């Protein structure tokens, strides 16, 4: 083989465009030709330099594009939020959580003292049935929003009447440098089938070039199904049911007193407080927080409502790099970044309270209330203390919906008789796992993001999907009382298989021999003949996927997707780590491997990576 032909073959080989015969010829040539081996080495170096460098930051162009498109066409149904807004929106929940106040709470009994870490989740679950009305105001302080606005303050007022009447109003009390900085005033209103969000549009155009002009966005919805995940109520802000009631324990840091009430202080990482902070992702502008920042929540030790919570900067170099990548000033470990605290308690709204005021023409989600007696629906006999709430169906669909509620607890059962796959009915995803039910099986998935705990049942003639914020044991008990027998899902509907079966016949796949405490293999999936994904979770902790290990033979490092990746040495090679995605990636012996999932920081991921060995 001539040198120029060999170099061309090297190039094709790098792009997976070389047929087996030419590959064999190339290998034979490279074995004897130092010059072409050097060309191959340098060509790979070019690739490495291209792909290991951080990707350039992407400016937020959405407002400009949407403005131009908006001048040419009718307004899109749902506004697209710029990334800055999305970041920031994570903190609306913070402000709102800050606004929760405890009033008109029917008798939640006092627990024993000292409170045990393992008892708090159980007591929160028990309290959730008894909360029927609230009114509260919180004072909120946020630091580090922008160099020109280092401190902002808010008043947040929340009113709630079970099951689904809710209004929160965030009033911005901050001083801004000029009129180009919009006040972060936010109102969210929900009343059963109606949902309305009024928030500032864009961000401070004076400080952030990608921002849209100052204005307001008002999004309205009608025909809303009960406990709809996309237009959700931030009930974890009132009582952290989803965040903590499914946990097996919490870390107790001590006691506190807020507004004269005794409180227990629990500590979590920011990544684990999603339901508290993320439930109102729809609006407003707030500073970002690192997934590893520490969140201290003072829970009223009678009612278990969050009376105060604060975010403090996590320690370590990784946190510093994250801050730099987000354009934030240096924030030493334990710096207070955010605090919300009860300021005033009042009586909860009366039973006839209607939170709604007039809004713009709403978007119709298509759900129509129909009394349960007029629906041919399969109903459970064991409701775990819940009572029938709304029921109905969607126009043009055979899907019927029953819902049940009591206080802050809720359950939705959807049923269809025309489901033909290709996956399970309901919003089940990567972590779905088969569980036994009396006489049959169902498929369970833990809570994640805005979704509750979910269970899918594939029965003869009908498919059911259950979703709830109740603990898993209650969900299974309710499902067991349904007059159906769940069968195995048809082939191809469920991708997950036991871990040993997933890695069988994949000599390239390694498994960790040293996992952090309490982590266990949860599920696995074969992604074709040459790729496998394994999930590891702490079974008693939700939400979040835990640790995710993905391995694929014959795959190189893809181009970086975000700006703040950096190179790390791992298992004798150079890989890369993305703090924002919590993802560690490397290529080892022709196999691409990645470790992520959000549960661990870089040091934790490196420990797991070091322990990877072939499955024996």
């Amino acid at each position: 083989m001539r040198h120029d032909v060999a170099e061309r073959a090297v190039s094709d080989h790098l792009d997976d465009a070389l047929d087996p015969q030419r590959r064999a010829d190339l290998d034979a040539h490279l074995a004897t030709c130092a010059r072409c081996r050097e060309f191959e080495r340098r060509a790979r170096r070019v690739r490495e330099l291209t792909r290991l460098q951080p990707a350039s930051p992407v400016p937020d162009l959405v407002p400009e594009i949407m403005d131009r498109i908006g001048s040419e066409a009718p307004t899109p149904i749902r506004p697209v939020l710029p990334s800055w807004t999305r970041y920031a929106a994570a903190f609306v929940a913070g402000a709102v959580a800050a606004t929760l106040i405890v009033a008109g709470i029917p008798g939640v009994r006092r627990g024993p003292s000292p409170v045990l870490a393992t008892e708090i989740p159980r007591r929160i679950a028990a309290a959730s049935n008894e909360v029927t009305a609230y009114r509260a105001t919180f004072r909120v302080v946020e630091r580090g929003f922008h160099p020109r606005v280092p401190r902002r303050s808010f008043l947040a007022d929340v009113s709630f009447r079970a099951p689904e009447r809710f209004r929160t109003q965030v009033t911005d009390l901050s001083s801004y440098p000029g009129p180009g900085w919009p006040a972060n005033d936010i109102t969210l209103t929900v009343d059963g089938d109606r949902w309305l969000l009024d928030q500032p549009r864009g961000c401070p155009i004076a400080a952030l070039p990608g921002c849209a002009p100052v204005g307001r966005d008002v999004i309205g919805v009608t025909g809303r199904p009960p406990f709809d995940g996309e237009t959700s109520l931030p009930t974890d802000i009132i009582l952290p049911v989803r965040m903590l009631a499914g946990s097996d324990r919490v870390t107790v840091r001590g006691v506190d007193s807020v507004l004269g009430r005794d409180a227990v202080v629990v500590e979590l990482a920011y990544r684990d407080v999603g339901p508290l902070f993320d439930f109102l992702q729809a609006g407003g502008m707030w500073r970002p927080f690192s997934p590893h920042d520490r969140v201290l929540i003072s829970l009223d030790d009678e009612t278990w409502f969050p009376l105060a919570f604060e975010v403090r900067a996590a320690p370590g170099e990784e946190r510093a790099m994250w801050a730099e990548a987000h354009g934030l000033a240096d924030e030493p470990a334990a710096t207070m970044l955010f605090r919300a605290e009860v300021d005033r308690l009042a009586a909860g709204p009366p039973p006839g309270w209607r939170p709604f005021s007039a809004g713009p023409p709403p978007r119709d989600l298509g759900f129509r209330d129909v009394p349960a007696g007029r629906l041919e629906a399969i109903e459970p006999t064991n409701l775990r203390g819940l009572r029938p709430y709304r029921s109905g169906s969607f126009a043009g669909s055979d899907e019927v919906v029953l819902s049940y509620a009591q206080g802050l607890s809720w359950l939705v059962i959807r049923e269809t008789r025309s489901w033909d796959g290709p996956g399970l009915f309901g919003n089940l995803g990567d972590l779905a796992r088969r569980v036994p039910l009396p006489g049959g099986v169902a498929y369970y998935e833990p809570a994640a993001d805005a979704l509750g705990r979910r269970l899918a049942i594939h029965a003869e003639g009908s498919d059911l999907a259950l979703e709830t914020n109740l603990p898993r044991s209650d969900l299974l008990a309710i499902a067991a009382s349904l007059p159906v027998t769940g069968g195995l899902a048809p082939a191809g509907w469920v991708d997950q298989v036991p871990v040993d079966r997933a890695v069988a016949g994949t000599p390239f796949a390694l498994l960790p021999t040293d996992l952090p405490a309490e982590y266990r293999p949860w599920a696995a999936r074969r992604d074709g003949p040459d790729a496998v994904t394994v999930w590891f979770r702490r079974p008693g902790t939700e939400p979040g996927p835990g640790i995710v290990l993905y391995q694929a033979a014959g795959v190189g490092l893809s181009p970086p997707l975000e700006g703040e990746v950096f190179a790390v040495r791992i298992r004798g090679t150079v890989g890369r780590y993305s703090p924002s995605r919590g993802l560690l990636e490397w290529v080892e012996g022709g196999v691409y491997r990645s470790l992520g999932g959000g549960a661990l920081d870089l040091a934790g991921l490196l420990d797991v990576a070091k322990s990877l060995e072939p499955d024996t």
Partner: protein
Amino acid sequence: VYRLALQLVRDPPTAEDVTQEAFIHAFRSLRRFRGQAKFSTWLFRITRNCAVDAIRRRERLRRMDREAVAEEEIRPDPSLRAALERAIEGLPRDLREPFVLIEVMGLTYAEASTILSVLPGTLKSRMHRARRTLVAAIEEVDADEA
């Protein structure tokens, strides 16, 4: 889209303009998208066309305004990565486009072929020529450092 635009035009403000133009064109042309290629491939093709237009406009402006050349007189960064960046920037467009799409963006030959309207065999040849040029560029740095 922005990253592709930036790799092609090598100038952040122009890349922002190209990104906006690409999305506006895509929005206007959405009805003409028939699903024969992946949506991303179709969008990349529009982006590439907008980038070509932007480069032409920029080159026209530079010819009109010779002072702009002074901007280019920046002391070169001697590092290997910087040398590679300069070498990519110096590639002629018919080599830089396939290199950016395939090596930097990670697209397949089939996808790049659709975007650039160039046969896959021709693309392979251009990729090889691009690589040869870039390998030579980093060889020079290695030699200087040695």
